[in-house]
């Protein structure tokens, strides 16, 4: 009985949230929603035990693809966002051939190199990628009205609702995947790949599947961002952004679905609101780095471990999974 009530309250809170904020905070909120999808998709890849440094570049691939198909080919914007995600997923499948010859640390470095290659391609080729300056004047999401609410996509609140809706659907899909036998197989591939293989699991196929799904959703996140900002350029997807994603995931913890989301939300609030208000503008990266080190030292299982301690035993994975099955 309690559960639907919580859902309704959460939905109302999420809908009301932007109206209590300033304009710049509303803009931050839009990016926060997009980043939640980015970091959650990243977690799906980490389920198989592989950590990539190319995830943000893959996100950029989605942004570029969506921008180009809408601008050059005249594809409608919501459709182009989906195409952006598909492009990212297909590219991930292609990249999996060289990258999944490696594991662990080597995969990490390989994914970084692959990402840099993609970024250099964007920089080098003016046609169609626009070189260092990237693409500007990307078609915005067309305005429309639902009768009771008119979407005006120059308003961050409208875009927050739109992006929030898309992200919710994506999170739901990611959640379903994780709680399915496919998700269990991802875990199996992570913990004992030899035993999984002896049970008939095609390791390459499952690693590629996780990589492609994670990349596809990252691409959707990128496309959402591109159509909001109106420009994409190679520098908005560089390693610095990747470090942010890693920090969210590590500080939040990757053992649960909500861990990275928690990390993303809390660190964004800290970074954008508290530190900015306090006037720590210059020192923000320093503080961010210090938080990451402190959390590795004193909170190795991330913020989610605090939640698990506070909440009653419900957090144990098995009954939850049984309910989902």
């Amino acid at each position, binding site marked *: 009985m309690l559960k639907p009530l919580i859902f309704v309250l959460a939905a109302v809170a999420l809908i009301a949230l932007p109206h209590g904020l300033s304009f710049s905070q509303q803009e931050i909120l839009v990016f926060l929603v997009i980043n939640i999808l980015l970091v959650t998709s990243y977690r799906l890849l980490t389920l198989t035990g592989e950590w990539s440094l190319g995830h943000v570049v893959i996100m950029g691939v989605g942004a570029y693809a969506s921008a180009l198909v809408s601008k050059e080919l005249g594809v409608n914007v919501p459709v182009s966002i989906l195409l952006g995600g598909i492009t990212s997923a297909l590219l991930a499948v292609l990249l999996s051939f060289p990258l999944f010859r490696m594991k662990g640390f080597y995969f990490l470095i390989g994914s970084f190199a692959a990402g840099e290659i993609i970024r250099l391609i964007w920089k080098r080729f003016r046609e169609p990628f626009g070189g260092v300056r990237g693409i500007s004047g990307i078609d915005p999401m067309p305005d429309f009205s639902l009768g009771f609410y008119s979407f005006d996509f120059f308003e961050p609140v409208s875009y927050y609702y739109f992006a929030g809706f898309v992200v919710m659907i994506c999170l739901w*899909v990611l959640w*379903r*995947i994780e709680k*399915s*036998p*496919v998700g*269990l*197989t991802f*875990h*199996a591939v992570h*913990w*004992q790949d*030899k*035993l*999984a*293989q*002896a*049970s*008939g*699991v*095609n*390791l390459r196929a499952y690693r590629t*599947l996780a990589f492609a*799904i994670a990349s596809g959703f990252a691409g959707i996140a990128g496309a959402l961002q591109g159509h909001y900002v109106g420009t994409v350029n190679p520098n908005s997807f560089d390693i610095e952004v990747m470090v942010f994603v890693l920090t969210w995931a590590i500080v939040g913890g990757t053992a649960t679905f909500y861990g990275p989301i928690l990390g993303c939300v809390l660190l964004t609030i800290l970074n954008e609101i508290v530190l900015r208000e306090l006037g720590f503008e210059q020192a923000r990266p320093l503080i961010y780095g210090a938080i990451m080190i402190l959390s590795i030292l004193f909170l190795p299982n991330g913020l989610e471990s605090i939640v698990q301690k506070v909440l009653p035993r419900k957090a144990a*994975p*098995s*009954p939850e*999974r049984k309910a989902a*099955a």
Partner: protein
Amino acid sequence: MTDFLEMRDLTMRFGGLVAVDTLSFKVAHGSIHGLIGPNGAGKTTTFNMISGFYTPTAGQVLLRGEDISGLKMHEVARRGVVRTFQHSTLFAELTVLENALVGTHMPFRPNIFAAIVGWDREDRRGAEARAREALDFFGLGDLVEERAGDLSHGHQRALGMAVAYASHPDVMLLDEPFTGMNPEETRQMMDLMRRLKADGITILLVEHDMQAIMGLCDTITCMSFGKFLAEGGPAEIRHHPAVIEAYLGGARHVA
């Protein structure tokens, strides 16, 4: 009996070392076949070649006449040859039930689209039923919610076998299944293996526990220094001069 599983001139070289040298033997369908030999005889290497973990340097593994040597481990598994591992190789972080569910990967192949939409309920139910059946068979029915890493050693060995059994195998390759078990556990495990045999599962096992081997196997192949030494029933092997020599050293060295 038919030639169900046949090793033909299997050879494995690691650099200059010949770990297994032109080994040939046949495993009859529905039998329990033991592979024994002193330490370093190449038993586990042979196992790894059959299961696809290693690609043999030369020679073939034939399953129902089909050459399966050089296939990847999951491809071998999909042909019905499923192995267990030495030591307690399990998904330690997952629960016992989840371990067994991974074992049902082959009969209930997960489909990602069905999983998202929710059309795989039947499969999930079937997989869970099969997983529980396999766990019950190995006496782990009460432990389904435990974390696999927390189980006792004997239970972990049993779970390793339950994971393999959950996939409906034709052949089970058991790598030292009795290691670290007390006599009572060994006796129970032997009973379970006889029941597996009654189910029509062919078992090939590597083992050091002679009591278990002699009490269980229909046929025993003995290896020494990578080479075929002798083959026969338990009684034959027990009194085979070459086997005794391999284990105890030449007669003249016996004090």
